């Protein structure tokens, strides 16, 4: 790799300025999005929600190498938890999100338990079982979920809180901002988690499980906790999704095909990159939208398939992975030298792959 033209010391004024610039840019993009016509705001909201869901998948599949074909179940469990709490128990919508997150963490943890013995594709089968089970369970417990007929959340119940000053008709904007803030929080958490000791254990588990185990990584707890966290984040997205669509049905958005959509988004955007899920979510929402005019959606499927294959051949790190590498050729953040008095020495070289 060629040496970068510009090296920026981590924690220096330049670095801070760049980070602030990145934040300002993100804020501007979000503000621009909020000012669009209602339909477009809705579409962008779904991008934000999918970005959260794919970030959740990224923790398990991207960083830890645990392929999950069952994330549709977490998405669905989150959505139905929110839906049932709002419709049946008349709970304040925003208060349902923590419940959805915790429930999905528990489910994820349970799904991770077989990982103590089962590995690789056999483990993917466990996630597959969960993905297949979810729509069937929704139909089975129709008293609770509305069954095959589905469940409708009345728009009155999704009204923005009073302090926002938004009218009922503006709940799209309200949900947009809720999703945006949630996404930012999730990205921050993912960033910190993957740079922590646990994050390194996750990546070590992915790259070589045996080697990781023999260097003291507790594989079993890494896998179960990662599955839990991954499910929790995707479930959180599911809760937001329930508010976004307002009508839930077992065959609508919570089948294995949704899992495949999430996996597609992850790899198009870039697995194991922080912003890959955002790019992936844009692709998952906008490619079908712009190609749906042609031949009732079949063309979008062909484009999707072709894009996936091209991505593997041309940019295996995904869109964000390639952009990040290109950027690192020009600018690179180097860790501050250990002798510098201001900052404690960084334990790992922090690569510049996050700030846009």
């Amino acid at each position: 790799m060629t040496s970068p033209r510009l090296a920026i010391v981590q924690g220096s004024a330049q670095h801070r300025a760049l980070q602030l610039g990145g934040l300002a840019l993100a804020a501007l993009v979000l503000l621009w999005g909020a000012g669009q016509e209602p339909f477009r705001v809705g579409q962008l909201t779904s991008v934000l929600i999918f970005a959260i869901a794919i970030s959740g998948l990224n923790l398990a599949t991207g960083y830890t190498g645990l392929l999950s074909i069952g994330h549709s179940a977490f998405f669905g469990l989150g959505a139905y938890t929110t839906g049932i709490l709002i419709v049946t128990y008349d709970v304040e919508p925003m208060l349902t999100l923590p419940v959805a997150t915790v429930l999905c963490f528990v489910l994820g943890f349970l799904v991770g338990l077989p990982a103590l013995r089962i590995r690789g594709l056999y483990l993917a089968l466990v996630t597959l079982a969960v993905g297949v089970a979810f729509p069937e369970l929704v139909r089975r417990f129709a008293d609770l979920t509305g069954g095959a007929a589905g469940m409708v959340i009345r728009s009155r119940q999704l009204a923005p809180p009073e302090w926002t000053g938004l009218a009922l008709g503006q709940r799209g904007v309200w949900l947009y901002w809720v999703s945006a803030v949630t996404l930012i929080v999730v990205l921050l958490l993912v960033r910190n988690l993957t740079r922590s000791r646990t994050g390194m254990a996750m990546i070590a588990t992915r790259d070589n499980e045996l080697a990781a185990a023999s260097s003291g990584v507790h594989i079993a707890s890494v896998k179960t906790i990662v599955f839990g966290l991954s499910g929790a984040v995707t479930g959180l997205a599911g809760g937001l999704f329930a508010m976004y669509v307002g009508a839930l049905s077992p065959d609508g958005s919570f089948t294995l095909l949704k899992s495949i959509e999430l996996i597609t988004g992850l790899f198009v955007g870039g697995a194991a990159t922080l912003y890959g899920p955002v790019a992936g979510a844009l692709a998952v929402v906008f490619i079908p939208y712009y190609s749906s005019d042609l031949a009732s959606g079949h063309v979008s499927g062909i484009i999707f398939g072709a894009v996936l294959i091209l991505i593997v051949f041309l940019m295996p790190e995904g869109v964000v992975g390639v952009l990040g590498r290109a950027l690192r050729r020009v600018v690179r953040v180097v860790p501050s030298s250990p002798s510098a008095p201001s900052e404690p020495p960084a334990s790992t070289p922090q690569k510049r792959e996050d700030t846009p």
Partner: protein
Amino acid sequence: MDIFLERLFDGVTNGAVYAIMAMALVVVFRGTGTINFAQGEMALFTTYIAWWLTVQGQPVWVAAIIASAVGFVLGAVTERTLIRPIRKRNDMATLIVALGLFTGFNALAGLIWNSENKNMPSLFPAGQDDYATVGGARLYFDALGVWLVVILLIGAVFFLFNRTRIGLHMRAVADNPESAALTGVKTGRILMLGWGLAGIIGSFAGVLIAPLSSQQLGLTTMFPILIYASAAALFGGLDSPVGAVVGGLAIGLLEAMITGYVDFVGGTLPQTAALVIIVFILLFKPTGLFGTRQMERL
């Protein structure tokens, strides 16, 4: 008793179809080391070709044979052009290509033949009265035909693997590609053949299942079958053809019996119940019933 027999027949028929599809997955897995997620949709595509040929006035048998020839070419070409260049990189890459093919082939079939369900004629007599009575239960001839084809197909695959030179090469490549290459086996060609063979098997599965399926031939016909076949292959042990057959039949029977006899899950949770049982068994046999344990060195 007769109800039990009918459920048994149902289970065996479905299980037989899962078994051949699982066999296709196992043949690919042994050579390439991953599950070909696109196997079902490739089979769907060739089944559409078979349907189209019958509409053009070809007999079903001819259509089935042409479809499996197309399946062979499709599989072999896919291996050569899309899988081989990236296979060495990692399993995830192969899996993503397979997902791409999954989406692509399904959409392509929809684009060419639209999304309406087609009536696929059966290879066997499939009228209301074409059945034999066994112990008071009706055994339809088309189900019997499926059993027959499956037995023949499985016999052929075992013959190929265990009694022919190509089969020996295939087993050698599956076992240890480097050593096989050193002894003069053309591993590339063998892998292509393996994918082609899986294409043939899958095509047959498609032609057999479409007339039995409740929705006939539609864009979603093969997806559930692929799911069960994957479960069957994993259950039996991904690298074991015997395991594929046992796994397929086990899933078919479990599904039929649970639907019939376990009231709590009733007709609503058959797939879940079958999969949960398999997961439990995997807890005790983590590489499936007949799978070989992988040894790893650091």
